[in-house]
């Protein structure tokens, strides 16, 4: 018989001989694999969603928008561009009323496409054909309104058209996360004007050349704006970046967590089977064969459990992930890709367990067989201290029993702490999302109300009791003059001083004071290489370029930090049409009803200011459901870590437990003992969790998610108390579960084992 066959056969016999223990081990592997399955498949799906959708949709390298123009004229200009592989054209009509199945929106966007590459993927049905009153609706709209291929939708004055397909285009987030719902029609009428050109570069890495050339040869095109594929990805990625970063760190924690759990289990298994190992060595088995038996044992237990756990994890998270991807107009990986990923993970998990089983066996097999037959411990005995008085009763004894194996104790505390810190991070994240939705102060906004009044009414508004200051907030879209694909937002206040109403923290430099100075967001500074002293040259929707001297860089969360705060004079001088709401900063304790009455007297009404994601409550719900899946799987891991730590301790200390039972300890006493053991693990784990979250995970995730802003991801006292309380409850539960099983075991078996 070959060594491998012998190892497999012996391991299989050993597994069948101890079914209970094998099931316990397999449960641990399953729990760890479940978390791994959730974390890795979600992280993979979200982190690759944009690229997948862009590839499938054939997203253009550059999208150029301009005022409606004759198609032939535009095409003649475009054909002369260097590095151009292909181009196609559209006409976009905004604010078109759409209605179907009892739903309606006045903010529909109808895209009339012509021939050529389309730049969107058809995910159901087929593409629209010209002249047949056929429409392709975007997936977000189809899902939200329950539209199907074969149904119909009313499109403005066009009336009812038949839905022949459902599309996904990752150039924007989906309806209703985006306000506008997109419907695509096809036309071959050459007289139809166009206002959008989709440009595909031969070499996408040199898209800047294409944009610069397009800019230079754009004579006659008005309001020309460019958006590169990288710009689109930056804008879209903002929505999922937090979750992806969170899940990526979670996946790393989960992988480490399963490794530690499995390693601890393998060490314990070897310690328990030292006699058997000694007999095998005494019978002449080489250390290598003994190691192979243990590796095979680990692999045999793991193979089915890991397969089950990974598949369950992937299935559990699939629906929630698909909803997030739908909201972002991205595509989920195919079943084949997911299966391939799971197979790789499965192989890695089995290999990890085989290795962690082999390592302590190799360590033990090198010892003389006589030492093994005496049942020596794998870990060396530590020097005893004198005078270990007995205080605290059974709970304290339980704590001592579980802490006796110091390396394992530390690893279980680390595992539990790491898992709990992820839960803490999830809580902090959900609270942050809530604040981003509801609290304007999270974005650094100091005004609480907005209204529609001109700047000339400022004095009248400020005269209303409770209003501390008022100004019109102008906001204009622009692109960097040196990087035309970089979109940015220019914000100016009619009062000239934005800090009264909006003051994101300064990362460097100082506040802008004069009309030629600008504070730029960190995101914009990173994109354009700006720092205090640099020149910010922007191309707004105006005939002329505008330049400012950068005097400060701020950590603004709005628009991914791609913002510039300036005074309005130069924008006006450049011909930028400035418009925006009047914002009101209120005095503390102001009577909002009275202010509303004051505004009503001026012919206006007040709107409360919300946070960054005021219109995306549905998306937050989707994110929350995904976070719940993650949180539940992490909680299961915590419970399993506690139960297996207690079960391992109880099994290893069967003699001690049997001695206690022989002395009269009943189920209540055993539970008290186990509660002490569980709390000894859970309480330091709570401290580890708080420290990990505060000093490692939150800064890491915040930096990875929004390096351009201060993302307040620190957990609050309530959240820390909730996690600590949760751990205590889990400890109680684990003690009850293990105690019940322990009380059913015969006392004599433990005494015999100890002897």
């Amino acid at each position, binding site marked *: 018989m070959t060594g491998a066959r012998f190892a497999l056969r012996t391991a299989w016999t050993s597994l069948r001989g101890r079914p209970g223990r094998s099931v316990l081990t397999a449960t641990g592997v399953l729990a760890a694999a479940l978390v791994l399955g959730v974390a890795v498949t979600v992280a993979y799906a979200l982190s690759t969603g944009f690229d997948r959708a862009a590839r499938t949709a054939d997203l253009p390298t550059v999208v150029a928008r301009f005022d409606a123009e004759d198609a032939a004229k535009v095409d003649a200009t475009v054909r002369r561009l260097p590095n151009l592989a292909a181009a196609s054209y559209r006409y976009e009509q905004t604010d078109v009323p759409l209605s179907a199945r009892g739903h309606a929106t006045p903010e529909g966007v109808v895209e009339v496409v012509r021939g050529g590459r389309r730049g969107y993927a058809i995910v159901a049905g087929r593409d629209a054909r010209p002249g047949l009153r056929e429409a392709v609706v975007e997936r977000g709209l189809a899902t939200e309104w329950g539209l199907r291929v074969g149904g119909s939708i009313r499109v403005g004055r066009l009336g009812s058209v038949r839905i022949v397909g459902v599309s996904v285009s990752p150039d924007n987030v989906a309806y209703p996360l985006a306000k506008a719902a997109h419907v695509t029609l096809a036309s071959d009428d050459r007289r139809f004007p166009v206002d959008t050109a989709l440009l595909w570069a031969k070499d996408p890495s040199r898209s800047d050349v294409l944009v610069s050339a397009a800019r230079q040869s754009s004579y006659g095109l008005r309001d020309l704006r460019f958006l590169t594929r990288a710009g689109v990805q930056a804008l879209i990625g903002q929505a999922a970046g937090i979750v992806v970063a969170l899940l990526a760190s979670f996946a790393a924690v989960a992988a480490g967590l399963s490794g530690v759990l499995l390693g601890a289990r393998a060490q314990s298994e070897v310690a328990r089977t030292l006699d058997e190992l000694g007999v095998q060595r005494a019978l002449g088995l080489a250390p290598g064969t003994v190691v192979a038996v243990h590796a095979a044992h680990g692999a045999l237990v793991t193979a089915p459990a890991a397969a089950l756990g990974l598949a369950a994890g992937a299935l559990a998270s699939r629906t929630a992930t698909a909803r997030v991807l739908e909201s972002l107009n991205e595509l989920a990986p195919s079943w084949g890709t997911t299966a391939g990923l799971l197979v790789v993970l499965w192989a890695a998990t089995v290999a990890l367990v085989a290795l962690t089983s082999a390592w302590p066996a190799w360590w033990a097999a090198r010892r003389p067989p006589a030492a093994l037959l005496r049942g020596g411990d794998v870990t060396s005995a530590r020097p005893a201290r004198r005078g270990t008085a*007995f205080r605290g009763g059974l709970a304290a004894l339980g704590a*001592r029993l579980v802490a006796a194996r110091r390396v394992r104790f530390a690893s279980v505390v680390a595992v539990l702490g790491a898992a709990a810190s992820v839960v803490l991070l999830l809580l902090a994240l959900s609270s942050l999302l809530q604040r981003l939705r509801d609290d304007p102060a999270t974005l650094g906004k100091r005004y609480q109300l907005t209204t529609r009044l001109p700047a000339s009414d400022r004095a009248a508004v400020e005269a209303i009791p409770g209003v501390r200051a008022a100004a019109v907030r102008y906001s204009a879209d622009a692109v960097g003059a040196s990087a035309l694909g970089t979109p940015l937002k220019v914000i100016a206040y009619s009062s000239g001083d934005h800090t009264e109403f909006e003051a994101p923290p300064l990362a460097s430099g100082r506040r802008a004071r004069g009309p030629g100075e600008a504070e730029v967001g960190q995101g914009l500074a990173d994109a354009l290489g700006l720092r205090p002293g640099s020149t910010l040259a922007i191309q707004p929707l105006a005939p002329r370029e505008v330049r400012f001297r950068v005097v400060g860089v701020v950590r603004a969360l709005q628009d991914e930090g791609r913002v510039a705060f300036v005074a309005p004079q130069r924008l006006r001088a450049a011909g930028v049409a400035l418009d925006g709401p009047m914002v009101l900063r209120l005095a503390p304790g102001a009577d909002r009803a009275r202010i509303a009455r004051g505004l009503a007297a001026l012919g206006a009404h007040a709107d409360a200011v919300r946070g960054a994601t005021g219109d995306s409550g549905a998306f937050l719900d989707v994110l929350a459901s995904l976070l719940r899946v993650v949180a539940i799987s992490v909680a299961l891991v915590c419970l399993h870590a506690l139960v297996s730590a207690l079960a391992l301790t109880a099994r290893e200390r069967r003699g001690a437990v049997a001695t206690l039972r*022989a*002395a009269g300890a009943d*189920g209540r006493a055993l539970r008290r003992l186990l509660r002490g053991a569980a709390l000894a693990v859970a309480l330091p784990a709570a401290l580890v969790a708080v420290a990990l979250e505060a000093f490692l995970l939150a800064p890491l995730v915040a930096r990875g998610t929004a390096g351009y802003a201060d993302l307040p991801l620190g957990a609050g006292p309530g959240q820390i108390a909730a996690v600590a309380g949760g751990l205590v409850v889990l400890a109680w539960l684990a003690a009850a579960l293990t105690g019940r099983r322990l009380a059913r075991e015969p006392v004599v078996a433990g005494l015999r084992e100890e002897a």
Partner: protein
Amino acid sequence: MTAVVLEARGLVKVHGSGRGERRILDGARLTVSGGELVAIVGRSGSGKSTLLQLLGGLDRPDAGEVTVAGRPVTGASERALSALRRDEIGFVFQFFHLLPELDGEANVLLPATLPGAARGGVARGRALIERLGLRDVAGLRPHQLSGGEQQRFALARALVGDPSLVLADEPIGNLDAAAGDVVLDLLRAIADEGRAVVMVTHQPEASARADRVLELRDGQLVEVPEGRLVET
């Protein structure tokens, strides 16, 4: 002679099944009164330890009845058995079963910390440590103690609950002669205080201290005449 503390009738215990079935106990009977030290002897594998476990409620017989201090052992719930062991029975094992994390004194006081333990256990435990001459080594952990010292701590632990019955399984099986003598003297003294002591042993010097010696033969207990050396 004081009242009967332990009474066992018709005890049957079968190990294994099918062709491997062995009837370890086959109608064994035993009565032990307070103040009596009874030694049970027999060949290895004859079922001595099994008998002791049945008497102490650590295992359940296939047939027969056991009562300790008038309280039924057979048929009692696990909770009732735990209470019985805590209140009425003290165990002494061949391998001591001291918890290595705790020092000698803490090991002795352990039963006093159990829920429902009678008051005064801690004081009694400390007095026992004094009485057994263990005060100087009470702060040491088991692996720092000699075998004799460990067994004396185990004996003190068995007596903390002030039991009426002490069950000792090969109490000197792991000790040298001198240490064994000390332990046997203590067991004798414990019996002389009015407790019932049942000791399983295969050592003649141990059975020589007993008031009665019973041999477990073919699953039944047979009285061994006084003065006869039992071959084990």
